[in-house]
């Protein structure tokens, strides 16, 4: 298996660009890591850690009128985990909640398939570039890290919306 099928150019570019990275005051009223504070309506935040490699990401999602208004993140980790957070930012912002759920489900199905499920670019967009990751079992968690955080953050945001 070629290493380039894992590290597609798009992934390496996203890993550097880190679109949507940075949780500052302008993107919401919850400070990073303030899990203990009172929930803010329409805002959810989740911190996820991969204990194997120490990669971590915090994702904050703002939901209104049944859609993801904003998805910002902050984290550190390998190129796969950082690129997948960057790609997620581009895909999720502006997506309806139903569309977002479908996106996360399709991404997870592809990654867990050990190469059996082909990426559907119609649904996954740039996230289709992670197709090769599904053949590297040890890296699936890296790719899922931000998405699991986003799923959790969106669930909180919906509950408070």
């Amino acid at each position, binding site marked *: 298996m070629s*290493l380039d099928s894992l590290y597609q150019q798009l992934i390496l570019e996203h890993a550097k660009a880190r679109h949507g990275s940075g949780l500052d005051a302008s993107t919401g009223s919850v400070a990073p890591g303030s899990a203990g504070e009172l929930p803010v309506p329409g805002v959810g935040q989740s911190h996820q850690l991969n204990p194997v490699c120490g990669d971590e990401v915090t994702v904050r999602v703002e939901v209104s009128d049944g859609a993801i208004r904003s998805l910002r993140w902050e984290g550190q980790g390998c190129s796969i985990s950082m690129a997948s957070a960057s790609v997620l930012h581009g895909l999720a912002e502006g997506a309806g909640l139903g569309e977002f759920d479908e996106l996360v489900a399709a991404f997870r199905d592809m990654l867990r398939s050990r190469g059996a499920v082909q990426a559907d670019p119609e649904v996954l967009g740039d996230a289709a570039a992670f197709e090769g990751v599904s053949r590297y079992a040890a890296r699936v968690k890296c790719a899922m890290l931000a998405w699991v955080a986003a799923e959790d953050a969106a669930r909180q945001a919906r509950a408070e919306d």
Partner: protein
Amino acid sequence: MALVKTPSTLQHAQPALDDAEVERIRNDFPALAQEVNGHPLVYLDSGATSQKPRSVLESEQEFYEQRNAAVHRGAHELAVRATEAFEDARAAVAAFVGVDPDELVWTSNATEAVNLVAQSLATATVWAERGRGGAETRRLALGPGDEIVVTELEHHANLIPWQELAFRTGATLRWIPVDDAGRLRLEDAASVIGPRTRVVAFAHTSNVLGTVAPVGELVALARRAGALVVLDACQSAPHLALDLRALDVDFAVFSGHKMLAPTGIGALYGRRELLDALPPFLVGGSMITTVTMERAEYLPAPQRFEAGTQRISQAIAFAAAVDYLAHTGMDRIHAREAQLGERLAEGIAGMDGVRLLGPGPGEEWHGKGRIGLAAFDVDGVHAHDVGQYLDSRGVAVRVGHHCAQPLHRRLGLTASTRASAYLYTTTEEVDVFLDALADVRAYFGVA
């Protein structure tokens, strides 16, 4: 504190294994002769677990084919053969580390061995509170005001059990810090280890830095304080000649799988009088003398700590493993790995954008050189990506925090990559690894 520096010529009186001998050794290890990802396997992850020679694999199979029975019970011939082989194995592994057979307890691995000591000390505390056990056992009890000392570079297996012991007994956990480079601050050890210290637990060899601890100095401080010494010999027992009696430690732990034996077997050494004073860790069959419905009396060590049916085939294979190592010569293995460690350190330190952790090339810490491992950080490339790239070139390394998060945090890292050699590692393999490492930053577009 004055450190006596031993000239390196005296450290290794015997010559290092040479390339031709290593080639012969490799023929004994079936797993090494394979390709991964289209390249010959370069296995540089022996610090995590070693590969196994045919003699070890065969000893386990031979046991199951010829002698399989439960030990220390049953009056039949196979039970006799199994018990003899099991106890012969104990004697072999005990001799390998310079102690008596009845001072060596079988455990699943080193982690379980540390837990055995820590949890049995917690139990001693409960026994003392409830008036159970003799004066020797009561002396082992811990409480508020007592201190347990570790170092900042410990593997989690030699840290968390002590955190839990402190929590259970009300004792305080303290640690000897390391400096910015990761070197133990011996000048602080004298103030950390004091009259309140009851236990001093530390790694003989760092699994991240490849350094050898100043055992003599730390033991002297512990003795002055009247504290017990627990040595984590996980990364030393496989790689250098170990004489636990000469090191004057009270307990020591090591794992078989890092030293050519199968997984599932490790050992605890304990000074005889301490093992006999320590309450049992796991209780049940095979470790008692008399049992009533109300209570039980326990056997002396080592059986006191070996409840339930034992890891018989693994123990026998462990003996085959130390036999292989002893036959090859631990001093020769140590000298060979020191050369490989130096080659790794030189190659890594000389690379742009790569930070070698631990002693620099040719450097000695606490009067000792690096063993055959080197961990490093590649600027701009996460350890996971480094490992993945190396794997694509057939090179197996370890990535992550190597179960030493506090040390990594102290070094300003969350993860690193580690290459670790063993007696079967060739000079060419180190060079293949270094060549591949030199290409990593370009592949990820940071050089």
